């Protein structure tokens, strides 16, 4: 943080407001979330182009899902199902299956939300998604409630703006947007980048290996439910026989 300098020139006065706004953002969160925003942008663009071609759902309603649903895989599953004429119950249940893992992330993050004000405990979990969960749990030092609040809100809002902005741009520009084939690898690279450092902890190997094998076998299951099955399979051994050395 720069030391406060007293400058009475008009120019300094002009720039004081934005720098004050920027100062409210958490630097570590910005550093963690920047590569995440870049990596989800191609996915947002694909969703945006899809939204531009929808027949049954108004584009503005589908686009509102970017900030309000805040979950890409469920978003695309829901739009695909609605477009195919699926019933309301089918769509809601499918979305719940795809997003069931968010409840598990919530449980894992709960200690960070415990000593927080009510608005934060009820509204801030809205930003729980694979990437924010992963970057936040990679920073165990964020135990101070105020510090975590700043980190979490910065990461959640910046990711939301980037995600919604890229999607809105793609809806507007439509199929003109080039989606480079190599960019489809971006999401894989992010998940690998979040996973590999965790494998320095040897207890992480078993759940990762089991989940990887099951995910491959369960990949053809509908609406991403294979992800849920694989995660449960990876966690099951510890659930049945808890580690004693913890």
């Amino acid at each position, binding site marked *: 943080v720069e030391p406060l300098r007293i400058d009475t020139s008009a120019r300094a006065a002009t720039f004081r407001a934005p720098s004050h706004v920027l100062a409210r953002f958490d630097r570590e969160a910005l550093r963690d979330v920047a590569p995440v925003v870049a990596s989800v942008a191609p996915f947002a663009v694909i969703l945006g182009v899809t939204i531009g071609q929808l027949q049954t759902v108004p584009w503005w309603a589908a686009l509102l899902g970017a900030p309000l649903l805040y979950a890409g895989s469920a978003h695309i599953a829901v739009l695909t199902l609605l477009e195919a004429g699926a019933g309301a119950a089918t769509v809601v249940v499918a979305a719940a299956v795809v997003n069931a*893992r968010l409840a598990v992330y919530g449980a894992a993050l709960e200690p960070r939300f415990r000593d927080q004000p009510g608005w934060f405990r009820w509204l801030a979990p809205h930003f729980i998604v694979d990437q924010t969960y992963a970057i936040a749990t990679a920073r165990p030092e964020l135990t101070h409630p105020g510090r975590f609040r700043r980190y979490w809100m910065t990461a959640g809002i910046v990711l939301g703006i980037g995600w919604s902005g890229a999607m809105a741009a793609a809806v507007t520009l439509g199929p003109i947007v080039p989606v480079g084939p190599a960019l489809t690898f971006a999401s894989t690279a992010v998940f690998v*980048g979040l996973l590999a450092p965790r494998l320095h902890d040897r207890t992480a190997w078993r759940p990762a290996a089991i989940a990887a094998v099951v995910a491959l076998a369960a*990949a053809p299951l509908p609406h991403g439910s294979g992800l849920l099955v694989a*995660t449960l399979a990876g966690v099951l051994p510890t*659930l049945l026989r*808890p580690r004693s050395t913890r």
Partner: protein
Amino acid sequence: VTPILVLALVCLTTWLLRVALVAIVPAVHLPTRVHTALDDVAPAVLAALVVSSLAHGRGLPALEPADVAATLIAGAIAWRTRRLGLTVVAGIAAAALLRLVL
């Protein structure tokens, strides 16, 4: 109006799932063994996400050798450096190059 209502219901359901174990029934009230198992969720779900992003909803036959090799390279970089940005850039570059070769 109906698709809009369904979308709203999906948003509501998703929010309920997110706050379920944070604000409605805080996870601290869950049994200890469930707590221990929560440590395994991150590696399990990330490994599953890596594999399912490579499997394209079809499983083993859908795996591209170039992408699998790029995944291993990205994994090695992430293991050594622990830097997400570097891993993503190097991973995409590796995937692009390997797709030309493999």
